[in-house]
């Protein structure tokens, strides 16, 4: 009778049947787009996620009208520096579109365990995506969803930035846009890393409420004969212009873009501390002012440097 009360043990030499619960790219997320689940997700998004984002990050949203003028599915691409990005971006989308959007999420991070897969699919409407290469299966899933009318949020950098600077855009978004013939909306997110940084070297991460900016750019389509790689580079450049705009102003950014002088979002290729320094420089407007106020023009010989504007102390 004992046998009936416990789960049976497996005789030696018998191979276990393959588990049907796939994880990673193989995880099937169709259940998460069925009507009752969508309803539940919409409620959670609107009543929990969006207010939380409002409280935590007070997003300042610019240029959303470009998106509001569009009908039908789009691909939204943004730079990626924090786990907060997805929530901020979803919160920034117009409500009608928010409820019909899926998020491409790293298969090896969000779908590595069964419970994580369920949670990601349910809460964010995530679909598993290979980080580094275009995986046939995940591309198929994404393409068919776009064709069904779903919009797709994707972070083409393939993961959160290790130091806050942008990384190279992978080709997935461009490939999907070309294949499905839908427009891509470049977006720049600023300040999410300050609210919720990526943990470094096991240091505990602290949530620090702050203010983020979400800048939507103009929708873009691949031009005639443009391959996915070129289009991807163009998307990256578009995000870089938005980033420049966030630092300066729209006009200066445009001018610089036209002169091909937009600073790369990938940052200068120098030592880690200088990359971090440059980044912090731009993140703190007060600091920028302070510094320009005391900076001496040019790098002349020290004896020839201009007289101090501030009286020497102790005389």
């Amino acid at each position: 009778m004992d046998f009936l009360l416990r789960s049976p043990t497996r005789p030696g030499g018998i191979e276990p049947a393959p588990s049907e619960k796939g994880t990673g790219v193989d995880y099937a997320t169709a259940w998460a787009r069925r009507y009752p689940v969508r309803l539940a997700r919409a409620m959670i998004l609107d009543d929990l996620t969006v207010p939380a984002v409002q409280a935590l990050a007070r997003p300042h949203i610019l240029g959303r009208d470009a998106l509001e003028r569009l009908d039908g599915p789009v691909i939204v691409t943004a730079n990626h520096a924090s786990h907060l990005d997805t929530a901020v971006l979803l919160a920034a989308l117009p409500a009608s579109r928010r409820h019909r959007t899926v998020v491409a999420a790293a298969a090896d991070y969000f779908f590595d365990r069964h419970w994580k897969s369920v949670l990601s699919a349910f809460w964010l409407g995530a679909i598993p995506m290979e980080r580094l290469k275009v995986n046939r299966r995940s591309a198929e899933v994404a393409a068919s969803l776009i064709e069904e009318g779903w919009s797709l949020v994707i972070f083409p950098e393939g993961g959160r930035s290790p130091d806050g600077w942008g990384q190279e855009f992978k080709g997935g978004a461009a490939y999907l846009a070309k294949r499905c013939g839908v427009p891509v909306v470049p977006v720049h997110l600023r300040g999410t890393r300050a609210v919720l940084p990526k943990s470094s070297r096991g240091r505990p991460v602290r949530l620090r409420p702050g203010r983020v900016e979400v800048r939507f750019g103009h929708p873009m389509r691949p031009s005639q004969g443009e391959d996915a790689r070129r289009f991807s580079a163009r998307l990256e450049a578009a995000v870089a212009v938005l980033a420049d705009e966030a630092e300066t102003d729209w006009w200066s950014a445009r001018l610089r873009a036209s002169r091909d002088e937009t600073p790369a979002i990938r940052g200068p290729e120098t030592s880690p501390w200088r990359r971090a320094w440059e980044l912090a420089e731009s993140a703190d407007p007060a600091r920028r002012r302070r510094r320009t106020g005391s900076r001496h023009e040019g790098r002349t010989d020290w004896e020839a440097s201009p007289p101090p504007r501030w009286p020497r102390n102790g005389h």
Partner: protein
Amino acid sequence: MSPRPGFVLEVDRSTPPTLFWHGEGFHLERLPVGSRVIYPPEPLPALTDPDAAIADALEHPLGDTPPLRALLRGGMKLTIAFDDVSLPLPPMRAPDVRQRVIEAVLDLAAEAGVDDVVLVAALALHRRMTDDELRHALGERIFNAFAPHDLLTQHDAEDPDNLVHLGLTDEGEDVELNRRAVESDLLVYVNINLVAMDGGHKSVATGLSSYKSLRHHHNVRTMEHSRSFMDRHHSELHTSNWRMGKLIAEAGVKVFQIETTLNSNTFPEQFGFLQHREWEWTWKDRAGFAASSKALERTPPELARRIFHSIRSPHQLTSVQAGEVGPVHDRTLEHVHRQQLVTVEGQTDVLTMGLPFISPYNVNSIMNPILVACLGLGYFFNLYRGRPLVREGGVVIMSHPTPWAFHPVHHPSYVDFFEQVLSETTDLHEIEAKYENAFATDPWYVHLYRTSYAYHGVHPFYMWYWCAHALSHVSKVIVVGGDRAAVRRLGFSPATTLADALEMAEDVVGRDPSITHLHAPPLLIADVQ
């Protein structure tokens, strides 16, 4: 109104009671008529634009050195060392001076394209700083730019791989320094000169050195011959450091010293009464005193400690000078003296002092009995120039609760020093000869110093040596309101009230002694004529 200088008050019948610090609290005490009270000068005005002043100092260095900008070039190795958590006291409101100065240095380094930059907290044998403390001292930007890449380091005096022996001074003193600092093309030291002891060659020669090197000037003989160690020209401690500084320069270590001085604006608004003169207390001051001393009576010590250690001082920058160590430090001392010097006529039989909740070695920690002794007999006793405030054979009366309590993480060797060493003897020479080596080389203390947040095993000995001059000079030390057992263990006499303590003092110095009260903090230096 320009700040008034410090002065000496003679107590008469209409003098209001005098404020005495008492650890995490304070008392008002009536001093006998005829006693003297030394008040520090009022806080000097702050620099109106500290960032511009810093930029200017870097651009126009003192001594024989080009401006920092000209010393920086791409491809060089730059190390920036800075004073640790022991300065300033209490910790200052953000932004900390170190943050301002180092940001300015880094801006120049970034402009010059210096890729190889490392920051070093000049701990000597102090405990390591926590991430929060580093964040506070350096600011979020610097921390975030350097810490994740392991470029924000803390000096480790027990890491043989990262120390270099530079040689011996003329007097045969070992000079062993932080390897990174020695091997850099430029070492920038960012200092805060809260008291006259800090800075100069002591910054590098002590802050970045090892036990092997420190023991040459952190010992009983040196401390007995540093009279006082707040007066560098009469301090054996400094003379030794200066010899080492000379050797360091000769060894080719290029030091660009940046020293800063702060005004004595030590306590925030709500504690204004702590730095106002009692007869000028406004109703706010009186209410503040009444409310806080009432509240503190009912506050458990643990909580009171936490409240006091959360005080952020409104210290402001009064000067910044950069360049060659010698000229920079001379200028710095002028500024420190401008803020702290008070002329006092003659010595006294009995010196009284109220000891506050904080000393350089218990920031965010517990002021254990050894630190009480060190603050009173080491720091406060030595706040003089010329002759000690108290006459030879006189009495020092200190007010502090002196709890028998130790911070288990920060002060592990202190507990053992107190339990084992002081229970056997309080004699400096005996302690040094019999116990110092065992504590200094104990692998457990070394482990905690390197990996946890513990002061080095030998550190309590230094605290005790710090008292050397005072212990050989005065004939009795009385602690008012302290834990009796702990006070006895220190070899001092406990007293319940100040009146009792003065009675006890009369047994030593005779009837109707002259009494002087050191009204600090805010800190002052008595120029005893």
